[in-house]
């Protein structure tokens, strides 16, 4: 894996120091990172013996761009008070975060070897009490946008300029609490709040359009007072531009509807996204998936 580095000379990135918001990282590196997240997801789930593949894969590019380009972080101090916050509403894809956190240095790389064991601090759904770098626990769908509203309001109380990002699933938007939070985000004009919908089209039980229609998402968030961008969520260049465009001094929260594909990047999962919501990829299937992913790394 190529080391991610700052190309911009005026904002050097020094290990142990602050990684600034919107730091320069090449698009190739960001795309490669997403593929690496997929490979690590396969490896960690295999180690544990069970996990969520296809809904992690749909968010791989989102994770890559957030953690290697967008978020302001201080890896030596995951609790740094001025960091940008990240909450994973669809907590079942935390497996895709752990390799990133180990790589950034939030915790020792050896912790990855504990994934799946009973005492591991890194778990299927993220736990803020045990895992450095997790800004809030999740697991019960529909809570984290509300929590993020509280964190964004706290930024206002403390006069901090951090941003709070939340990734929600599209199925998660069927939860009523999400819309209470959307209402509050609009009411308080939380320009420091960004919701990213990983709109991969499926929940655990089937296509969201069939179980319970949630469209038109853009109109719905806009009607709650949000600034909405609807984009191709699998394209790192688009994600970079979209996150860079978030206004510094706005009056509205931003919702990025990232259109993605459940199981993205592995053909057998793209063809059967539901079958691979949860499972254990083994044998020739695993080998084929890894060949496919590796073939895209440049």
């Amino acid at each position, binding site marked *: 894996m190529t080391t991610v580095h700052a190309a911009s000379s005026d904002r050097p990135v020094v290990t142990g120091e602050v990684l600034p918001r919107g730091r320069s990282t090449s698009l190739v590196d960001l795309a490669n990172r997403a593929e690496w997240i997929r490979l690590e997801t396969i490896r960690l789930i295999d180690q544990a013996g069970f996990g969520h593949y296809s809904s992690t894969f749909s968010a791989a590019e989102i994770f890559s761009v957030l953690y290697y380009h967008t978020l302001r972080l201080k890896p030596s101090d995951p609790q740094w008070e001025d960091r940008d916050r990240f909450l994973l509403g669809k907590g079942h894809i935390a497996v895709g975060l752990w390799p990133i956190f180990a790589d950034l240095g939030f915790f020792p790389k050896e912790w990855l070897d504990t994934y799946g064991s009973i005492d591991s601090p890194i778990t299927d759904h993220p736990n803020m009490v045990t895992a450095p770098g997790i800004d809030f626990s999740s697991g019960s769908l529909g809570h984290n946008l509300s929590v993020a509203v*509280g964190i964004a309001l706290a930024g206002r109380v403390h006069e901090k300029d951090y941003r709070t990002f939340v990734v929600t699933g599209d199925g998660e938007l069927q939860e009523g609490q999400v819309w209470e*939070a959307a209402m509050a985000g609009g009411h308080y004009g939380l320009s420091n709040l960004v919701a990213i919908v990983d709109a991969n089209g499926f929940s655990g039980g089937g296509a969201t359009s069939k179980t319970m229609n949630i469209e038109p998402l853009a109109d719905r968030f806009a009607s709650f007072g949000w600034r909405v961008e609807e984009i191709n969520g699998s394209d790192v260049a688009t994600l970079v531009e979209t996150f860079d465009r978030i206004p510094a001094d706005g009056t509205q929260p931003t919702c990025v509807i990232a259109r993605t594909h459940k199981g993205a990047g592995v053909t057998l999962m793209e063809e059967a996204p539901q079958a691979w919501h949860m499972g254990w990829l083994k044998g020739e299937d695993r080998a084929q998936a890894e060949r496919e992913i590796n073939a895209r790394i440049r």
Partner: protein
Amino acid sequence: MTDTTSPTGSGLADRAAEGTALPKTGTTMENVFSGDEAKKAPAAAGNVVGSTLAALADEGHDIVVVSADMGGAVGELRARHPGRYFDFGIAETNTMSAAAGLAASGITSFVLAMGPFGILKCAEQIRTDLASTHLPVRIIARSSGLAMGFFGTSHHAVEDIAIARSITGMTIAAPADNNAVEGVIRSTLDHRGPVYIRMSAPSLPGAEAVVYPEVPVFERGKFVTVRPGSDLTVIAVGNMVQASLVAAEQLAGEGISLNVIDAVYLKPLDEEAIVAAAGTTGRILTVEEHNEVGGLGSAVAEVIARRRLGAAIDVFALPDEDLKVALPGVLLPYYNLTPSGIADRARTLLEA
């Protein structure tokens, strides 16, 4: 107000027929929406909450108050610290989770909740977002028990202690009078993790007593003996502490000495105080405005059983059945949760 209703509860119709029904005093319901200007004495507990929270902000504590359309009680705070109150409208679950987000940012957040729409409606948010995460959120549940009993079954809040007790990491405290309201808020300020503060209805006329002449300082997990005695121990919670003190005074005239304990902390539970009471009086009567399942009585009985204390116990609580709907001044006498009702149960336990 009369407090001599028959325990079988056929009383209302009978008394109506006798022309003695429906006491016109002591039927107050607290207007939980009222602002600080509503200084009616029975509603004072809400005002104490408002003034205490405003004082905490004045003193520089990093607190916020949030609620789902319940901001009436915190007018002082809103006037003096407008940036430290957030209303989320009638959206309780969002309010609870947002309070967790504020707390995760280092702020002690107070959620003003209406009894049944706090812990009962938001149990999962409380467990997942406040308790599992060890966050400093204080839930102030106003009008618990039967305080809003006139509004219907939806407004009875008699399951909350049972729910709160079973949530790992939760501290539960219940003030017995207005001084205790401030005492509980201040004493729990530095506790780790969430605190559930159960606010009772104002005590009925005839069941009022000063439990704490001054603002008390409570020690986490410790009961308070509010009246020493030797024949029988009453462990009561919330407004039932006042009623128990009145009952103790009544019984003293009969030569019966009640030891009255304020279970100001329900979790952690003061097991040593229960052991001591079992040893000195041998008889324990618990009194609470809560379902008989899972509340104070259950907690005390578990200790007596687990520790093989061999004490006689009676759990005086609301029956586990569909509860009646009426003003508190009617409901509490109907269920005998009055000084003379408590005195009757104490006599019966003493004779057992």
